[in-house]
């Protein structure tokens, strides 16, 4: 399966790629998606923002903080995968770390699109006219990314880890606590859109 096909399937028909099978090229696609998301959110978007508004306001480009955000985003991705893998191990699901990494990475597609929209609104606020209809469209997009991510989460739980209902609740409760901690740390260093 080529890379573009995996990407297409991840977006429009994920049942073919979000499963326990060893899909060739899935890990590479996942890593690319995660790196693209973290790079865009931590480095590319702040640089574009800086060059767009530097003539209007006096702002500085905090390069150290940008790399801190990048590192933190990658660390949280690996930590989330490790935690999922450990939980799967505890419940004796017999799953490899690579399978978790490759499928969890695919769930970064909504994150990426959400970051793009968010940064676009920061860089070009004119696209939001401020009326009710544009608020309706924009909030629809943000909610859509959130629901889409949640569906990916359910898919990974059901089709990759093969959890029962009880295991699902236990894993979700543990992840909710850990993810909240990640989000708080992320906000403190300036990550506005959580990359988990």
């Amino acid at each position: 399966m080529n890379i573009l096909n995996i990407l297409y399937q991840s977006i429009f028909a994920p049942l073919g790629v979000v499963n326990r099978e060893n899909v060739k090229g899935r890990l590479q696609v996942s890593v690319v998606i995660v790196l693209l998301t973290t790079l865009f959110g931590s480095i590319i978007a702040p640089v574009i923002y800086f060059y767009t508004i530097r003539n209007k306001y006096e702002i500085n480009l905090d390069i150290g903080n940008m790399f801190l955000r990048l590192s933190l985003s990658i660390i949280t991705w690996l930590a989330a995968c490790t935690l999922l893998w450990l939980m799967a191990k505890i419940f004796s699901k017999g799953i490899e770390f690579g399978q978790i990494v490759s499928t969890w990475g695919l769930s970064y597609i909504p994150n990426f699109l959400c970051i793009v929209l968010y940064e676009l609104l920061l860089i070009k606020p004119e696209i939001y006219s401020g009326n009710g209809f544009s608020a309706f469209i924009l909030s629809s997009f943000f909610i859509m990314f959130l629901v889409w991510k949640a569906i990916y989460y359910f898919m990974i739980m059901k089709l990759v880890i093969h959890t029962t209902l009880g295991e699902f609740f236990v894993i979700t409760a543990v992840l909710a606590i850990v993810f909240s901690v990640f989000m708080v740390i992320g906000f403190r260093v300036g990550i506005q859109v959580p990359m988990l």
Partner: protein
Amino acid sequence: MIEIMDDRELEKMIKTVDIEVVPPEGLKEKLLARVRDVDDKTGSIMTPFERFIFEKPLRTACSISFTISGLLWAIMGSGLTKLLIGMIG
């Protein structure tokens, strides 16, 4: 050379053919589950509702988000604009 079968033997043979074959208990279910797993690439049994959502998650996400957003707009009116501005910062 054609061998002519004895009438009794023939009757016996016909009877054995007519006997209904009953598979051992649970075999049918096992076979069905295996066929379903082969058919389903994920190897996991999904309910029709799960299959509907997982087949095209974007469709579900769009339907849910536009419904929620529409409801928010109807309830909050211009408050939705303020909420969005507040969230974006």
